[in-house]
């Protein structure tokens, strides 16, 4: 069994819908995987306390953490609370940490790796989500890394590269076939904001608990 904790802020005034769609896309993309134990933490429940309790319930197993909410250099957060803070991350040291939120790679990512986090994939800059008609494409691209990692079982580096390829493919489609230059530019910004740190050879099999 592989434990996955997903925090998503469906309560956010601006992007609640986006985060909720991201979670649904993750669920759909991984629906064929039988050995996943997904625990979701939504909206107002996205607090440090709830996250710590959830991690504690895993009994020190390795796990996948997915953060689908606002971010900055040091935190993942909602309008009301902090969900992950760089000053208090020991409970995430057994995780593979994934988040498409803004800027978390700057401090939070490197601190997590210093604390022993298995692998970190996040963004170094602000990322974009302007055009609602294309949310499905933004989200599909961002989720591709997790889908590939959990469904196919290849290394996290290969999964990350697969995500980059999907971004490239969609950027080409949007710009060449649909004349959606501004959307393609946003996808370029989002694609180039992602970084990977830590163990690039990590595989799904490394996370299996009994």
């Amino acid at each position, binding site marked *: 069994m592989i434990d996955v904790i997903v925090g998503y802020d469906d309560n956010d005034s601006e992007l609640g819908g986006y985060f909720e769609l991201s979670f649904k896309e993750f669920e759909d993309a991984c629906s064929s995987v039988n050995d996943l134990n997904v625990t979701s933490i939504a909206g107002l429940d996205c607090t440090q306390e709830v996250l710590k309790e959830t991690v504690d319930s895993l009994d020190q197993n390795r796990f996948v953490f997915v953060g689908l909410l606002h*971010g900055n250099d040091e935190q993942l957060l909602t309008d009301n609370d902090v969900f992950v803070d760089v000053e208090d991350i020991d409970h995430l040291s057994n995780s593979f940490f994934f988040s498409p939120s803004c800027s978390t790679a700057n401090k939070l990512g490197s601190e997590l790796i210093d604390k022993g986090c298995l692998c970190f994939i996040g963004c170094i800059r602000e990322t974009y989500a*302007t055009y609602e008609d294309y949310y499905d494409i933004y989200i599909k691209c961002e989720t591709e890394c997790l889908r590939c990692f959990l469904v196919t079982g290849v290394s996290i580096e290969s999964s990350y590269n697969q995500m980059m390829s999907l971004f490239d493919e969609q950027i080409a489609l949007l710009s060449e076939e649909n004349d959606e230059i501004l959307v393609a530019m*946003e996808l370029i910004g989002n694609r180039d904001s992602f970084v990977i740190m830590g163990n690039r050879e990590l595989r799904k099999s490394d996370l299996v608990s009994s």
Partner: protein
Amino acid sequence: MKQIVPTKIVVIHDDIFDEENNTSPIMVALKLKYGDENVLLFRHSQKGLDYVLQNLGQKMVVLLDRNFHDGKEIDGIEVFEKIREETSLVYVILVTVSKISDIDGNVLKKLINKDLFKLESFTADYTKIIELIDEAVRILDVRVDAVIEDWIVRHPIEKRNQVILKTKEGQSYTMNDLLESIRRQTEIGTEFEKNLLKLAIELFSRQKLKIDD
């Protein structure tokens, strides 16, 4: 010179106007070339600097005098430095009546390191100065911020106030905000510029020659 969005030529010089004859040959030549409304003369350096800093949202070439006769005026080098504190997108041409070789080495180093566009001696023959201004205007016109500005003005005014970029942090930018951000070189402005260039490069890289097809 036909431009979609004209460049402002800002002349900051206290000795360019012939009071006796109430004229200035270089100003006349510039106004003929770029249009009366696009060429501005400031004979006090502070006023010229204020104008530049208050109008960073537009394309500008500044022709700047190095030495002002009145000791109370801000020296041209200082005006240049104050512009550079805000932006490197305004092209500055510094003119001096002194010999270039008389300029102190440290000052020259500063001018080069802070991207002075051109340094030229100011003589009665101003054709060289006009050539330098032409060159600056040409280069400005193919810069990304100018291309974006041209794109923006092709849209009706109400469209220019629609949000075209929204970060996941919830900050929204209209076309006009973005242009201002690029000219002021904020993080969001430089990122937008970079992403546009990256897309252009990606599109160009994928283009195959069709001659033999």
